[in-house]
């Protein structure tokens, strides 16, 4: 696969790993504490486990798997609302595949489908709009979720539906925004993160500039990174160089697709269709100010929450779950008492076991290889 295999070249990986190993003694740190670098995005977590990157790193570096898995941080109450919409006889619910298994308090979409709800997997909100055109007698609801990565495609689909006058299409909007979430994370009192591997796809849309406060206020290195294994190793090296030099800057490793100012057309679509919610609930992290968006009044007819009654009940995460502590890097997944026991990919209790991008599921799926 041209343009992909080049980013998976073991020779180049060895060179980068050599550079990482050489720089480690040059970084000032407490001898008993490893450097904690958070990869914010679930896609990065997936790559790290899929290629076994953690085992290749020298001692003294700990990768902390951050909150950037939109499926994982979806609270149970929202899943319940979605299931309630899906179970309406007139509704076809269209969703991304990995949202199918996310458990609400009363089951997942996969279970709702087994019980007769018409739930279909799509790869794009435009596929959902096509379903609406093909089934004018039904109500097609798209389960909109994800960070700024998927926000523009949902917005453009709503604009397209408005332009065509499609009357039977709406979006159950659960889109969330990364910057307030990073801010909330950085405000955590006992947070010990030394640097960040920043999200790549989100940054294609919003650019690198919105992260400026991380460098200015919190003085932490933040490197926007691509998703191939070499991208991640290079970004890690860039973070380590900043730490060695005592810098805390925003850098862009993923410059082949991320422009500092982001994508103007995508940002315009977001601005046109959504407005910030005062609060949005995150599974494992609690309520975070200005961290979610909702559909503006002008497009209210495409808002499934206004179109259908939803229970809108807040459901508390199970007490035993320590997803929040894992997301903040306070504990490793295997330090959670239920990891791999009561909580497995087959029967996930906590959010992070749900999607293969979740830190716990990724560790469970890929990370238990023998160390030798």
């Amino acid at each position, binding site marked *: *696969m041209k343009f*992909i295999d080049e980013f*998976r070249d*073991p020779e180049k*990986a*060895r060179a980068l790993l050599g550079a990482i190993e050489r720089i480690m003694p040059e970084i000032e740190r407490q001898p008993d504490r490893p450097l904690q670098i958070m990869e914010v995005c679930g*896609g990065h977590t*997936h790559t790290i*486990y*899929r*290629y*076994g*990157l*953690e*085992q*290749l790193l020298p001692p003294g570096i700990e990768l902390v798997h951050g909150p950037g898995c*939109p*499926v994982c941080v979806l609270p149970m109450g929202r899943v319940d609302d979605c299931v309630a919409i899906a179970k309406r006889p007139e509704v076809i619910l269209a969703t*991304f*595949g*990995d*949202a*199918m*298994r996310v458990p609400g308090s009363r089951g997942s979409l*996969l279970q709702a489908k087994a019980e007769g709800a018409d739930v279909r*997997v799509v*790869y794009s909100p435009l*596929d959902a709009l096509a379903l609406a055109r093909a089934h004018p007698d039904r109500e097609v609801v798209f389960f909109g*979720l*994800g960070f700024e*990565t*998927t926000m523009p495609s949902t917005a453009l689909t709503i604009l397209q539906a408005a332009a065509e006058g499609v009357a039977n299409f709406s979006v159950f909007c659960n889109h969330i925004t990364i910057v307030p979430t990073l801010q909330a994370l950085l405000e955590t009192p006992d947070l010990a993160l030394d640097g960040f591997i920043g999200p790549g*796809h989100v940054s294609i849309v919003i650019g690198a500039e919105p992260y400026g406060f991380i460098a200015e206020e919190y003085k932490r290195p933040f490197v926007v990174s691509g998703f191939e*294994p070499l991208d991640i190793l290079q970004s890690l090296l860039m973070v380590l160089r900043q730490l060695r030099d005592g810098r805390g800057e925003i850098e862009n490793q993923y410059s082949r697709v991320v422009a500092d100012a982001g994508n103007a057309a995508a940002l315009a679509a977001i601005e046109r269709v959504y407005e910030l919610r005062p609060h949005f609930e995150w599974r494992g992290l609690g309520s975070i100010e200005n961290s979610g968006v909702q559909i503006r009044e002008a497009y209210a007819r495409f808002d499934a929450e206004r179109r259908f009654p939803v229970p809108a009940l807040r459901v508390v995460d199970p007490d035993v779950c320590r997803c929040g502590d894992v997301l903040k890097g306070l504990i490793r997944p295997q330090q959670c008492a239920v990891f791999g026991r009561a909580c497995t*990919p*087959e029967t996930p209790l906590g959010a992070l076991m749900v*999607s*293969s*991008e979740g830190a716990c599921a990724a560790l*469970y*799926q*890929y*990370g*238990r*290889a*023998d160390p*030798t």
Partner: protein
Amino acid sequence: MSTAKQTISLAHGAGGKAMHDLIEAVFLSRFDNPHLRPLDDQAKLNLADLTARGDRLALTTDSFVVDPLFFPGGDIGRLAICGTVNDLAVGGARPLYLTCGFIIEEGLEIATLERVAASMRAAADEAGIAIVAGDTKVVERGSADKLFINTTGIGVIPPGIDVAAGNARPGDRVIVSGPLGDHGIAILAARGKLDFETTLVSDCRPLHALVGTMLDACPAIRAMRDITRGGLGTVLSEIAHASGRAIEIDEAALPLHPEVRSAAELLGLDVLYLACEGALAAIVPADAAERILAAMQRHPYGRNAALIGEVRAAGRIGVTMRTTFGGRRSVDPLIGEQLPRIC
């Protein structure tokens, strides 16, 4: 009886003349053989014939519900024959006889059924087996999806052959017979819901002859599984757990068409869990591995066969993969259906 453009009705399953005519016209005319011809309630098989070929019977059953019924490289009929033939073959058995049960949704075109039956006959001939008994049921529209087929097969295992999932031993080598995932990607494309096109065709094919050449090269093959829905990852996990061993495979050695790698990459699917319908994984003694591999590569269905790993003397029970990148990951059985990732 002319069956062109006619459709199946509930009468075709009612046990009367319509059913009899359908069986005659569609099935008997195509499957014809001395065991089936009398249309008794059972096929009668000669025991002496069976015992002359081996000392154990192998018996297996499988049901086929594939959507769509016809796909590049195969169809539900070919699949129903090959699937059961392969389940027998990977136990070291020579497949001999098959029965088939059809559950037909009312409204199916008879021409479709004829195409499926013709394809079953062709696959049966290729596999060297006879379809000796059958059953037809018709259900109301909506109670089934067009056509479901069950096949049950009997084969005979020659003396001295002992192929079982629990037999893997430290030092044994792991071989796969062919490119992984062709069937899975071909079916996804054929369903037409994902809006991508591919030149890939399903690898749906009978493996008995390939297995025959393998056992000729080394009768002491330890374990074999045909790689179906759960993909290579699931099959090797099953062998590892049945044998209580650690298996390690090498990502770089996996035989994969570039189209499959690309499609899996694009769709966010893991090639280790993509379905095959004409590939097998085998655990073989180390000293015979090269000999078996060479024999496989001379067979048209084993041309892409590759040595991909080994059974280790120690380590966590299960499968580990050395990645092309130099790292290691564990390979667990697939849980539920493989669902595409969001971004």
